[in-house]
């Protein structure tokens, strides 16, 4: 199942939080309020991030690791936990598999080796390991600092290993939680907007699962998994993907190595874009379909990071020719020769309940009456579940045991060298959202536009001053941006956002090396150099 294991309430009542590769203070401000309640109650907060972010200001300890060394850090913590006798031996024996292999893989990771690999002082690694392992309840929360890497899935597995090692999963206040970037990212995945899953996270290559869908839908579901986003661009490059239907995405600006992505989008036979806003991708489209805004111009549901499905209701009619996504898709079906009848959100939802067991108990009436429900919710009498994987503590274990995964530390694809000596990492700021499609139209008192953020030491070494325009060059391209000197950065580390693609196309710099398992590109690690701009 792809979802955070815990409820927001639990982070308010946990004892120890590892906020790993996440600047939730700025990127998940609402979630961060829940987290701060926990901190105020006395939870210890550790932030693990190359930058000392505004989230780190609230932390007991900030650990400033090198970009892309998360696995080394996790392994080093794991070894410390094992050799200090702090591993949850009982849980490991009861509910997990493959511990011996895992233990063998992390035992070489002494604190000293961890320090050399990550840059984090051994004492800090030790302190985090002990605090996490000895806390009665503890959580790991992460965001794109973990997943925007070429080995994203391995990074996640390394964190899951830590939770299994200490028994910090499947209990109130203990869990592992990816923080979702949008109000409904979770819902998109739940509905099967993933290349290998049908709604309810059911695997498309499972014949039994497909049989259910075939029966309910009255068509034969293709038995192979599809392409993830990075795979799609590769397929465009190979000429095997010729038509693309984009709904609510701006890949012309949001993908790594932007010049390449735009060229590939242009090369398509047909590009259909359905969006609320006139994005840069709309400019490339053969057909643009103006859509109603999901938040208030259409009926349906949202699903939050805590797996809570909530009703959303149409509050006003969409402007002009904009139409509800559902109506557009129903029309699309009609043109393809299938008549689905009148588009009705509740009818679609009830169909989902028929095919997705985890949603089966969630009627619209219950969602309204109970203020949303957390999946899994198997039938109308099921209250939903605050946290996942409680089964691991049942005796005997309910279902399969949880496997440890052996993963190896790998540095980012693009190494630094004399020509490109600075590590560029990317991220987000409080006032902005991704490529700015949904935020740039609103004024913000804290907006300061795109900058290339550098450490005071690098600025001094290169003779740069605040606001000075410099050319930022990577192996893929170059952009010009003003310098911002940021004490949160150490020498050798630089930072940009991708919020202002029209002014500074940061993704001209980023590398499209991606994780074969998840398809996520390594936005977090590029090699750059800075050059003076004439005049």
């Amino acid at each position: 199942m792809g979802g955070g294991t815990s409820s927001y309430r639990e982070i308010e009542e946990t004892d120890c939080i590892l906020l790993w590769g996440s600047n939730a203070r700025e990127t998940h401000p609402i979630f961060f309020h829940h987290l701060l309640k926990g901190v105020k109650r006395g939870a210890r907060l550790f932030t693990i991030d190359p930058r000392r972010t505004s989230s780190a200001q609230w932390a007991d300890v900030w650990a400033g690791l090198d970009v892309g060394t998360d696995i080394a850090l996790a392994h080093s913590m794991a070894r410390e936990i094992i050799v200090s006798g702090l591993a949850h031996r009982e849980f490991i024996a009861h509910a997990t598999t493959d511990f011996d292999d895992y233990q063998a893989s992390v035992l070489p990771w002494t604190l000293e080796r961890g320090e050399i690999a990550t840059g984090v002082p051994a004492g800090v690694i030790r302190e985090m390991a002990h605090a996490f392992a000895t806390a009665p309840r503890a959580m790991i929360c992460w965001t794109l600092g973990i997943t925007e890497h070429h080995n994203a899935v391995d990074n996640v597995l390394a964190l899951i290993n830590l939770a299994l090692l200490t028994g910090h999963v499947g209990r109130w206040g203990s869990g592992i939680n990816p923080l979702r970037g949008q109000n409904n990212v979770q819902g998109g995945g739940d509905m099967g907007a993933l290349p290998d899953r049908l709604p309810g996270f059911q695997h498309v290559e499972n014949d039994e699962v497909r049989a259910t869908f075939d029966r309910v839908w009255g068509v034969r579901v293709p038995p192979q998994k599809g392409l993830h986003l990075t795979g799609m661009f590769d397929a465009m490059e190979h000429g095997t993907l010729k038509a693309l239907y984009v709904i609510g995405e701006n890949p012309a600006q949001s993908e790594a190595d932007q010049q390449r992505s735009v060229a590939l989008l242009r090369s398509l036979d047909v590009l259909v874009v359905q969006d609320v806003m006139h994005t840069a991708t709309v400019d490339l489209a053969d057909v643009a379909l103006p859509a109603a805004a999901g938040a208030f111009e259409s009926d349906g549901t949202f699903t939050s990071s805590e797996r809570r499905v909530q009703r959303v209701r149409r509050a006003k009619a969409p402007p002009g020719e904009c139409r509800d996504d559902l109506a557009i898709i129903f029309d699309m079906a009609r043109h393809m020769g299938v008549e689905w009848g009148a588009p009705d959100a509740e009818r679609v939802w009830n169909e989902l309940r028929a095919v997705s067991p985890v949603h089966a108990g969630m009627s619209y009436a219950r969602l309204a009456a109970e203020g949303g429900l957390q999946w899994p919710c198997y039938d109308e009498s099921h209250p939903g579940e605050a946290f996942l994987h409680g089964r691991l503590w049942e005796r005997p274990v309910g279902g399969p045991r949880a496997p440890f995964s052996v993963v190896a530390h790998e540095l980012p694809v693009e190494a630094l060298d004399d020509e490109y000596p600075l590590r560029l990492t990317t991220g987000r700021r409080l006032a902005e959202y991704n490529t700015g499609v949904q935020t740039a139209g609103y004024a913000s008192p804290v907006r300061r536009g795109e900058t290339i953020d550098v450490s005071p030491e690098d600025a001094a070494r290169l003779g740069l001053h605040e606001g000075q325009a410099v050319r930022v060059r990577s192996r893929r391209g170059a952009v010009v941006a003003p310098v911002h000197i940021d004490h949160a950065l150490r020498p050798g580390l630089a930072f940009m956002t991708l919020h202002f693609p029209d002014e500074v196309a940061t993704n001209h710099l980023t590398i499209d090396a991606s994780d074969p398992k998840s398809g996520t590109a390594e936005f977090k690690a590029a090699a750059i150099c800075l050059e003076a701009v004439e005049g």
Partner: protein
Amino acid sequence: MDIHVVGPEASAEERDAVDRLLGPPASGWDGGVRDSVRDGRASRGGRPAAAALRHLLLPAFHVVQDRVGWVSRGALNYICQRLVVPPAEAWGVLTFYHLFATEPRARTVAHVCDDIACRTQGGEALCRALEAAIGPPGELSALAGGAWQRSPCLGQCDRAPAVMVVAAGDPLVRTVVAPVSQAAEIVAAMAAPAARGVRESLAELRDGVPQAGQPGLKLLRRVGVVDPTSLDAYRASGGYQALGRAIEVGPAGIIAEVTTAALLGRGGAAFPTATKWAAVAAEPALPHYVVCNADESEPGTFKDRVLMTGDPFAIVEAMTICGIATGSERGFLYVRGEYPDAEQRVAQAVTQARAAGLLGANVAGSGHRFDLEVRRGAGAYICGEETALFNSLEGKRGEPRSKPPFPSHVGVFGQPTVVNNVETLANVLDILVEGGAAWARTGTATSTGTRLFCVSGQVTTPGLYELPFGCTLGELLTLAGGVAGARPLQAILLGGAAGMFVGPESLDLRLTFEDARAASLTLGSGVVMVFDDTADLPDVLGRIAAFFEEESCGQCVPCRVGTVRQRELLDQVRAAGGTMTPERLHLLSELGQAMRDASICGLGQTASSAIESAVQRLHVFRTEARS
């Protein structure tokens, strides 16, 4: 948190002042020199650090202002980095307190009292003379080497008119000049503040306590007689007997004696002391705290100043006993910023007591742990309100909290806290030595013991008097030699600016809690300020109204707006030649009623009482019939 430090940086001098208080910074993240290797890899702090440091905000402002005379934006930034406080929030605290300057000003500043007691002794004339000599307030005078400004009551009413000279530097020099007869004395004190030498000698103390040395005194027994700087002298005169007795009888025994004594609080509210102590002692939440409220700011009040300067060990001993009784291991004595001598005396007493093992991990070998810290206020009348005082101790704006919860349940730092006035605590010593029952034989059945009265104004012998409860106002006035120059008595202000005026017809009033209550009066903090027939009472009322307007913390609307409207109304009446129309009279009483009914704390609830009493009882203004 979310610290965005922008702009100016602290000077080396400002940094040094802060570092002497807090120690050197541990890293670049808390204001030290950035070490890109160390600071680029880890930082520590966050909310736990912020929560642990916040209470040092006022002390940090003090050390900077003590050194350079004001708190610059750069110093503020540095303090915020050190203490993990957002600058915007720290600014809110800094600007709350009158004594902190946020714009550059002279290092030496003379605070000239123009409040009601000093007014009766030529305070206004002194201000005019000073202006003629060295220029308007706030302006640097080359002649004096500093600037002067007006101040609310400095608590030196027995020596009015009074001036406090503060010369920032290393070391800081703060000195009180009182009484002052001419502007030249102030100018001389500003030019050479350190030259004034030791203040509050035994002789000076005796001047303020006309009964000094007389038999029968309890609270004032040692003042002006026993060297207040010597622990040995204190012990030789019976000091620390009470602590010995307290250790013998234990916490329950102490509370039993105080209960038997029926001691009522002397700060103004007359709450049973033993009730507070028992409530805190019974609270399961730990730690417990003892707070001594020495923020004596009620205009006309100076009793706690005299006790602290004249018998400081008594306060330390009494707080220690309170700590043992209530299971508290830590105490705070919060003394107003206008009391340099009292602060210094008590701090000295604490140091000596600690060195002698009478404070610390094992108080007098008893196994009890108790220590206390002296904290300085920064010019805020409202901080005499106990919950505002807690906020101030915690490094916040001194705004009162809503009650309940009461301090005995949720006090300073959110913990069970016993908070007592200085005079209240001082009584505990004799209660333990004599026994509660014997002690309670002094006074009346419901007002036990003795009471300190701060007699000032147009009286022959102003000063601090101690009398058993039950004597009359007239007897007290007689003891103080009657109205100065034997002039006719016009009015007496009882209880300070938050108290009430009475006329000569009230001289038979027995000075007890119950008699005052029966007459709809209050003894308050023991202020007895005398006005003869020449006193300009409308002017006094105007000053009182201005005082409350200035001191309202602004948190709740009835007080914030009401105190302004009240002052405006008095201005109008005075501008109209002292004629009170029925409409204005009605408005004045409505304002008073709104503030009494709806203010959060005692400031707003009593802001109209003196003014209304003068209007209603003394008919200070001519009333005009409704036309």
